[in-house]
């Protein structure tokens, strides 16, 4: 469905952020991209959703293909027309609009009857949003805002929903609820998800396939189950060590090993 082929992204004409990454997302799947701060995860999503231009970034090499068509030079609103929608990191709801108006804005590109139907669907999956629909979104709780951001993304009948760190700053119970709904949406509505996360445990439990990014490159990829068993992933992302305590010197060798992987 979605295919990034050796994509390189440069900001401001000089800052190299993505150094030739290749990612593939299958129809109906949940795929995750893991990585630390600054690895280039958000940039990857922006390269797909056409948001780079607003930040003076550009795909300088490689291709982004969606359902067989090149999309790496589309504008953001055109990408939405193609069926790609991005949920930003930090939720980014329209604060001064009510919850319901946020949803209406999210369904901007579909006809009114479709918009109404989608709204019902969103309320079905997120009953809390229905209860709070008249409240200005800025005053919703963090969890509600995240639900609203995801619900709003669903309003445009997307084929691919990209979530940028949906667990950021939320309580574990809320995260569990939201990730449960994502799984349900994937199973029942056949929505494809591409999820960027720092929380590897969460992401690998949610996704079927995963990529690990470091310094703007993919260093590791595989089935989520296999990644969970990978020694490096366990060590660096899951925080599971083999038992005995590590000295700082050992940590340094891991650093070396990681670089070698890249």
């Amino acid at each position, binding site marked *: 469905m979605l295919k990034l082929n050796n994509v390189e992204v440069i900001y401001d004409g000089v800052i190299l952020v993505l150094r030739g990454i290749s990612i593939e997302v299958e129809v109906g799947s949940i795929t995750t991209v893991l990585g630390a701060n600054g690895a280039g995860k958000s940039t990857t999503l922006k390269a797909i959703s056409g948001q780079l231009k*607003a930040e003076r970034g550009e795909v300088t090499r490689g291709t982004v293909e969606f359902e067989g068509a090149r999309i790496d030079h589309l504008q953001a609103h055109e990408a*939405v027309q193609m069926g790609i929608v*991005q949920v930003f990191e930090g939720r980014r709801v*329209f604060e*001064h609009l009510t919850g319901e108006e946020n949803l209406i*804005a*999210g369904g901007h590109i579909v006809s009114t009857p479709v918009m109404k139907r989608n709204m019902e669907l969103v309320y079905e999956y997120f009953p809390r949003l229905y209860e709070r629909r008249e409240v200005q979104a800025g005053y919703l709780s*963090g969890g509600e805002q995240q639900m609203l951001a995801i619900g709003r993304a669903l309003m*445009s009948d997307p084929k691919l929903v990209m979530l940028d760190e949906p667990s950021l700053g939320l309580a574990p119970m809320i995260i569990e609820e939201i990730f449960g709904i994502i799984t349900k949406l994937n199973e029942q509505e056949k929505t494809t998800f591409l999820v960027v996360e720092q929380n590897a445990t969460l992401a690998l439990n949610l996704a079927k396939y995963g990529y690990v990014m470091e310094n703007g490159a993919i260093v590791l990829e595989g089935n989520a189950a296999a990644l969970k068993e990978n020694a490096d992933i366990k060590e660096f992302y899951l925080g599971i060590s083999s038992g005995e305590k590590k000295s700082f010197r050992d940590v340094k060798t891991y650093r070396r090993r990681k670089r070698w992987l890249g």
Partner: protein
Amino acid sequence: MEWQFFVELVTNGMLTGLMYALVAVGFVLIYKSTDAINFAQGEFCMIAAIVVAGAIKLYGFPVWVAIGTGLLFMLVFNWGLERVVLRPMIGRPVVAIIMATIGLALMFRGLGPLVFGAETRPIPLPIPDQPIIWGPFFMAPIDVLGAVISIGFMAVFGWFFMKSRKGVAMRAVADSHQVSMAMGINVERYFVLAWMLAGFVALLGGLVWGSAIGVDTQLAALGLKVFPVVILGGLDSIVGVIVGGIIVGVVEAISAGYIDPFVGGGTKDFTPYVLMILVLMVRPYGIFGKPIIERI
């Protein structure tokens, strides 16, 4: 008849205030959708009025045809302005856009008379000259017409903005350009829409003010004149514009009626600003402006 004098001041102040609101809503329109303050709104009114008055005077157009010409001109004019001047500034700091509008304002003030002549021209709307006397109320027909147009526009525009899907999208654009784009909203198209609406309301403002006080470059001063209205009401509130307009109109009328005789005149020119400063001390975002939402 002391109370009659007071009633007269208040009614006329309210009517004038509603006419102010008609100009002020142009600021709100642009601010709500682009987050910038358009200091050329007064000049837009002036240009609209000059075109209408010029079409009547120089080409002998009937009034309605002249108004139609003015409308067409303003829509095309503001569309072009958005394309040529303002679109390249998208993504730049808001201050840059504000400075650009100030530049435009000065340019128009110079170019208007150059193209259409500097004499004061009338816009002869087909309404009676005799004041309307209704019980203790004593009103100029043009003021009444202006107030009616103002309320009518606010009602229609308010509905559009608050209830229609396009209005919701417009407010979404004002909230965040980036996120709106990610919703599939063509942000640039909504900018154009906002500027064309500002052109339309400038025509209305230019018409009523032009026929009330005559058409020349003095009309452009309306822009600054209504600034207390905009600030009082809150830069982004339609209700605020109406309330702010009425408050400023009434305060002006009352200070002209009661204070001027003692000090020799001129107080109505600055009392609105005094009021504006007082309001800003208590509510920095205006009476109806949106507070900055901070989640703690």
